[in-house]
């Protein structure tokens, strides 16, 4: 217990001594620390920026389907028409799904012939006919209202979810859900109830509208058959290619006369994109070089002042400093210095990265949502500063600890 408190006061005292020493060599220390601050700021910014960019990129890529996504469709090889849907294909798909026990699946039907209108405004809507699993499979988040449920097929009016562009184009911004909009195709108009909205999708022009297959079939199927139909399965990445192959073969067996195609299709299909990683590594590499240069000048200050320090260490040893304590104090000087410098660097980085205008300028887009500063980058920035301080501190600390008292204080 006593030795523990001794260790505690020893630690506090060593920090105080280190701080005093830094205070005395203020200017020189300050100059060498500018490098450390700049380096840590750029290192942290590079890592944070890359982390945020990766997160944004992943989010946008995953709206196309989270890995591993298998796309399945069937078509008539003797016809020019694209993959269409019919009950027979749907049945074959459901049967194969049951056999393979895939948890997440959705139909993907599209219709391009619909015009949406409300309050005298209209737009060419992209109608997506999907099952409820579509949302988790594409990381689709409903920002207002709710997503489609299987029960919505039984509603008296057709239920739909639309994106923010859709709402904006029709001048419905700020209005409370549920909303009613009209969908027109081939002279036929149906009123649709909007039960949820999502944020604007990062690609595609027009507004999007999602509804369940049964809803579409019931209200629009006759007048406007879907332009194309496919199915998607969300499966573990491991073994997804083999699964696609077996799934295709099994479903093909159910559909003589048609050709079934099943293949993986997601952004990780060809492996992860390494370009961002490369850029991060280059910036981080440059930052580490600056950091080493900064710490080198810190080391220089420490070594230049060592001559004077040797006498000082001798004096301190005469009134009770142990070699361990001398080593620790001298080392802490450098650690305290770089920790402070690095802390300032991290703060600068946070200020830069959290600046909305700056971020929009760099990313060249309007972000609807500020990504959060990655804590990991800040922790790493601090960790690197402290590690560099410890590394630079070792040499002067070793010199100081080896001082012979009698030689040091001899007049």
């Amino acid at each position, binding site marked *: 217990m006593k030795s523990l408190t001794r260790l505690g006061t020893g630690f506090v005292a060593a920090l105080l001594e280190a701080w005093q020493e830094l205070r005395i060599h203020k200017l020189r220390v300050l100059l060498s620390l500018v490098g450390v601050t700049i380096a840590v700021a750029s290192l942290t910014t590079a890592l944070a920026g890359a982390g945020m960019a990766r997160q944004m990129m992943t989010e946008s890529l995953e709206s196309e389907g989270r890995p591993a996504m298998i796309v399945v469709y069937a078509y008539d090889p003797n016809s020019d028409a694209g993959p269409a849907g019919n009950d027979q294909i749907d049945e074959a798909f459901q049967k194969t799904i049951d056999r393979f026990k895939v948890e997440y699946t959705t139909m993907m039907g599209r219709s391009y012939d619909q015009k949406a209108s409300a309050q005298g405004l209209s737009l060419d809507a992209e109608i997506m006919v999907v099952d409820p699993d579509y949302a988790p499979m594409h990381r689709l988040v409903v920002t207002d209202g709710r997503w489609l449920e299987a029960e919505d097929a039984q509603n008296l009016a057709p239920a739909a979810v639309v994106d923010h562009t859709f709402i904006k184009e029709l001048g419905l911004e700020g209005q409370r859900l549920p909303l009613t909009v009209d969908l027109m195709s081939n002279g036929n108009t149906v009123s649709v109830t909007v039960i949820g909205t999502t944020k604007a999708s990062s690609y595609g022009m027009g507004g999007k509208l999602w509804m369940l297959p049964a809803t579409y079939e019931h209200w629009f199927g006759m007048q406007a058959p879907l332009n194309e139909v496919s199915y998607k399965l969300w499966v573990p990445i491991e073994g997804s290619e083999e699964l696609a192959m077996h799934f295709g073969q099994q479903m093909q067996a159910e559909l003589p006369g048609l050709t079934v195609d099943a293949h993986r299709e997601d952004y990780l299909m060809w492996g992860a994109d390494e370009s961002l990683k490369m850029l991060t590594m280059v910036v981080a590499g440059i930052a580490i070089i600056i950091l080493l240069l900064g710490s080198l000048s810190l080391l220089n200050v420490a070594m230049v002042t060592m001559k004077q320090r040797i006498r*000082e260490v001798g004096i*301190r040893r005469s009134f009770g400093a142990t070699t361990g304590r001398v080593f620790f104090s001298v080392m802490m000087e450098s650690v305290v210095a770089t920790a402070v410098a690095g802390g300032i660097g991290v703060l600068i980085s946070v200020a830069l990265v959290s600046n909305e205008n700056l971020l929009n300028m760099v990313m060249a887009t309007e972000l609807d949502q500020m990504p959060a500063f990655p804590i990991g980058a800040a922790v790493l920035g601090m960790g690197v500063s402290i590690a560099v301080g410890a590394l630079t501190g070792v040499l002067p600390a070793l010199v100081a600890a080896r001082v012979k008292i009698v030689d040091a204080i001899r007049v």
Partner: protein
Amino acid sequence: MSGEPLLKLENVTRSVLLPDDSELHILNGIDLTVSEGDHIAIVGRSGTGKSTLLNILGLLDRPTNGSLLWRGKDATRLSAKQAAHARGRDLGFVFQQFNLLPGRTALENVMAPLMYAGGRDFWNRRKLATESLERVGLGKRLDSMPQTLSGGEQQRVAIARALVRRPRVVLADEPTGALDVTTGRAVMDLLDSATVDSGAALITITHDSNVAALAREQLQLDGGRLHPLSEVAAR
């Protein structure tokens, strides 16, 4: 007060190896006993080994041969760490060149030894250091830097620093060597009275017989051995 001496040297020798591989015998057999409250002056010409002896007494250096007992224990067997703790707790040093830490105020200099103390002494270091400086008459110069103080004042700061942990032994190596006669006299009076007050033993090294005369016991270092001063004079 226990009867056990603080320091007991028997036939202590110290020799160093010179760069040309020959041995220089500095101390050739020192016998000395220091008990609580003793005031001893050691005089000798320059280069006779006074500082070498003081360093051994202060556990800063080790004898080449002979026995050195520190409070009854074989001091040559103390680990470096134990010696450091013993110095911090029980020994105070005053040097000819003051040896104040540059760039630190008088107060910070006097607080410095308390940085190696544990517990209460550490946490109360500001108060203890202030009191110690007040006792040497520098209560108004707490925040002065060493270079702004006169030689006598600097030595008083050094004395305050040596006494701040209430050592049992104070070792002063030519404490007046860098001071004029009047100032030196005042500094010696201060050292003398402060150690009388605290009950610490005081060993002063000097080449000034007037300074030596203040001590109750006077020894001369000559030929690597200690002799009573009178005996030398009679020779």
